């Protein structure tokens, strides 16, 4: 391996990084086990995610979708950690991992349908935007509750272990979520039951208005792993190659039966928590400006330039391609219209109960009369 080591108690974490923030050069001895073709792919995915987020925020501002939670500034952590997973691995996401769903083959049309909650939405318009998920890509449909997915990730991992599937479960969480009981219980269960699970904390330093310093006195989020007896890895969350490499390390470790681990990817939430808040009321946006200078996409672009893998012409073409694709999908999804009223009663149970059927009939009668 390339010097990836867990954080040590009482010592500030040395965050694993690969890409020089200024030059984009790859640190000697830390070239990740990815091809140059992968590099281009990673870059394209990060750009795609940025473009989607920018467009969706606008849609929300225009009142065309109800909500949106962007991953702007966090693309390296999302795409880097998601990129190295195998098809048989399972994802139990938090709010900002929609990009991982796309990476795994969740169709972009489904992503946009979900944001509109329209008739072709796989979830039948039941959830707020950003609550993606589908069984076909082993990406468990998000709930809005915080950290509940982590103990479930342990359960998925135990099932994978019991059935000898060779798969690994990944539970994502934000920095705020590491204060929830379920985070601690999940680490306890994972370590004790030796579950092949990797917990990934995207530490974007803000839980709505609560900064990570107001959230915890722990030296780092990665340090929280120690008390439970599993390794905690700290990675530069704005370095896509470092995120991919540390993730691969943790996932392969779990796959080999060496147990669970926690990864903390330190990044920054450049935008608001969601379209319903205003960060200027609670944080110093001068610091946000500093983090904008550490933009993960610009940083990786320098790497690509450095290696001669990319240029401005290709960049412009990519932007146009994404723009056209996103616009077309929005145009299509927006025209679809809402789900049928009858879908309200589906999927509560495998079969509707007699009382549900009665309520359905009553609603139907009422609407026919009104």
């Amino acid at each position, binding site marked *: 391996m390339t010097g990836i080591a867990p954080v040590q108690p009482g010592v500030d974490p040395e965050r694993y990084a690969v890409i020089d923030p200024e030059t984009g050069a790859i640190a000697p001895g830390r070239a990740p086990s990815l091809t140059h073709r992968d590099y281009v792919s990673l870059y394209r995915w990060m750009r795609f995610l940025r473009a989607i987020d920018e467009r969706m925020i606008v849609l929300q501002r225009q009142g065309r979708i109800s909500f949106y939670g962007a991953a702007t500034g966090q693309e390296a952590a999302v795409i880097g950690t998601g990129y190295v997973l195998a098809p048989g691995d*399972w994802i139990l996401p938090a709010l900002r991992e929609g990009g991982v769903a796309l990476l795994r083959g969740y169709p972009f049309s489904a992503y946009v349908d979900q944001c509109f909650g329209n008739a072709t939405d796989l979830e039948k318009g039941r959830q707020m935007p950003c609550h993606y998920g589908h069984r076909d890509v082993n990406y*468990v449909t998000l709930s809005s*509750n915080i950290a509940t997915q982590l103990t479930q990730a342990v359960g998925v991992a135990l099932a994978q272990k*019991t059935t000898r599937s060779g798969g690994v479960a990944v539970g994502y969480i934000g920095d705020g979520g590491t204060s929830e009981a*379920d985070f601690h*219980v999940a680490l306890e*269960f994972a370590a004790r039951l030796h579950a092949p699970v990797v917990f990934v904390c995207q530490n974007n330093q803000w839980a709505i208005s609560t900064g990570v310093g107001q959230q915890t006195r722990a030296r780092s989020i990665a340090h929280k792993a120690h008390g439970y007896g599993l390794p905690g890895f700290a990675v530069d969350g704005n370095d896509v190659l470092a995120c991919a490499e540390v993730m691969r390390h943790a996932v392969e470790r779990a796959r080999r039966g060496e147990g669970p681990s926690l990864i903390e990817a330190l990044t920054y939430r450049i935008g608001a928590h969601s379209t319903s808040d205003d960060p200027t009321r609670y944080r110093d946006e001068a610091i946000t400006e500093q983090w904008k200078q550490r933009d993960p996409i610009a940083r990786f672009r320098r790497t690509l330039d450095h290696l001669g893998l990319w240029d401005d012409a290709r960049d412009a073409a990519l932007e146009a391609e994404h723009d056209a694709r996103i616009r077309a999908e929005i145009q299509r999804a927006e025209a679809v219209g809402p789900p049928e009223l009858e879908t309200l009663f589906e999927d509560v149970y*495998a079969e509707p109960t007699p009382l549900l059927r009665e309520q359905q009939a009553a609603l139907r009668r009422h609407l026919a009369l009104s």
Partner: protein
Amino acid sequence: MTTMNIIQAIGSALGHAMETDDRVVVLGEDVGKFGGVFRATLGLIERFGAERVIDTPLSEGGIIGAAIGMALYGMRPVAEIQFADFIFPGYDQIVSEMAKLRYRSGGHFTCPVVVRTPYGGGIRGGLYHSQSPESLFAHISGLKVVIPSTPHDAKGRLLACLEQDDPVIFMEPKRVYRAARGEVPDEAYTVPLGKAATVRDGRHVTVVAYGAMVHTALEAAELAAKDGLELEVIDVRTLVPLDVDTLVASAKKTGRVVIAHEAPRTCGYGAELSATIAEGAFLWLEAPIGRVTGLDTPFPHTLEHAYLPDASRIVAAARDAMEF
């Protein structure tokens, strides 16, 4: 046929299920080597190993969360929560996750977890080993709520729960865990969910009960019969889905209904039963529907006999209905 108590019937059901279906796993506190504090899982770890009979750390949220993950993946986990009173650290997982996964995913994920938990008073358990929180689960769409009252019912219904695809809260009446005995087939069988049972016929008053209170209602029926008052006793058996037809038919037959449960009265499941019966049998009712319930107090220790409905209170309520 073997004479069994409810504990043995549950153990027998779990043994069958694990033998015939590799997907069935049991997890919880002390369920392995110890066989559970009430011994319902006794001997399972020897038969099926520690990977399928999992002694977990002490966290109800963790047990239910892990069970949900296993179910999402395609297993059939049976999670034991040692006492229903301790289920609340896992309540978020039950309400927000287990109950809603099918709906929120548009039916692409299912969550067939069975949560077994002993509930109810009468064992000198005080505030925290006695409660009956069934209405807190019956209120949540997406959950099924099953409460057996006999060994035969416990085995057949637990096996039925494991054959269907929805999450179930399976509440076991611990006061009669060992006291309720009966003939149970040695082989596997199922008792369908959503069907109530008329466990005693009578002309005058219908008594609706579930769990341990069914036995109290039968005792009341014996008592009342001495004075010529005939009680018909209905065992609800599954709170969700509810068998409205059986309840309404009996109410129409007798014209008088008394509902008995251990849980506090306010917003107890009796309120739902009462409203449902009134909607279905309003013109047949000769008296207000009576409720014999626990008190709207926390569950007491020394004075639990005064808190818990007993046969005499059920008989008194039936008389009130007759004399209305």
